[in-house]
């Protein structure tokens, strides 16, 4: 790599449009001639680009950034709520399928309604114990899901409201 010690001088001359003053050196130094050629071309292109640039005003860019920041904040808030709602919906669907399965087995077993009732009353104590157990564990979960469903719109309201 060959570099002329006067390269920075050449760059300065290009920036100040005084290349003619360095003509003798540029004729003698190939490296500096190349630097001058590239720098002059790019500097001219830069000046044209800056002159032709139609940039929006600072106010518009700030306004758009504000709107975008608020939208991003709302999205960030709503993400866990959407997730909780999805989980709640999946749980509800699972529960519905579970009940449907139990009902279908009862219907296809061929037992009559009266036989089923007799059988159920005979095992009422077991059923009561199992129900209490299910209720004990399912209640907090159900309450949590219900809270999510209620809180979601309220949280979204606060996230999106102006004040």
């Amino acid at each position, binding site marked *: 790599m060959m570099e002329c010690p006067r390269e920075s001088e050449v760059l300065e001359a290009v920036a100040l449009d005084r290349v003619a003053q360095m003509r003798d050196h540029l004729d003698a130094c190939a490296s500096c001639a190349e630097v001058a050629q590239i720098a002059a071309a*790019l500097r*001219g292109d*830069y000046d*044209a680009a800056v002159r032709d*640039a139609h940039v929006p005003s*600072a106010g518009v860019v700030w306004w758009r950034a504000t709107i975008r920041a608020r939208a991003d904040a709302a999205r960030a808030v709503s993400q866990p709520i959407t997730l909780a709602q999805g989980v709640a919906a999946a749980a509800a669907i699972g529960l519905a399928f579970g009940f449907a399965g139990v009902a279908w087995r009862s219907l296809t077993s061929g037992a009559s309604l009266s036989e089923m009732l007799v059988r159920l009353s005979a095992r009422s104590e077991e059923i009561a114990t199992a129900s209490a157990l299910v209720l004990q564990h399912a209640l907090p979960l159900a309450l949590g899901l219900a809270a999510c469903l209620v809180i979601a719109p309220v949280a979204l309201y606060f996230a999106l409201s102006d004040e």
Partner: protein
Amino acid sequence: MRDMTLSSVDRFGAGAAEADDIFQMDEDAFRLFYDRTSRSVWSFLSRMTGDPRLADDLLQETYYRFLRASGAPTDEAHRRNYLFRIAANLVHDARRRPRVDAVPMHESLERADPRQADAAGGAAARVDLSRAMARLKPRERALLWLAYAQGSSHKEIADALGLKTASIKLLLFRARRRLAALLGEGDR
């Protein structure tokens, strides 16, 4: 620009104070900084992507990311380098998903009013330069633009492109040789 309705103006007014909390600088400081840097950033984006319309979009994105950055530097020179670093990263990302409606820079220059272009320093020379730049590697383009078009120092280039300051000299030399060769081909 999107039309601003009365309600959106109201919403903006209400959100202005909150925006000062979210962003790393207040609106007045931003206005000053933007007025000093936006044209340079747009020129960089425009020449690096070769697509002025994409540059418009990336300009907004650059300043948005800059405003949202939590660890952004506080002094002007470093802020400027940081801004160009965001812009360079956005150009890199944009290159990976090409747009179907992109208009290459040399085509848009060719379509421009020749009288205007002549006044700007020669349309043909700019088209040649644009074509030659388009054939360079993205990093070479960025190096040459920052060094020779914007007059950035090696340290500033290194900060903006995420490179080591010591390596800039050699990389710049190689890029310059390549561009000179490409421009030479164009002359023949």
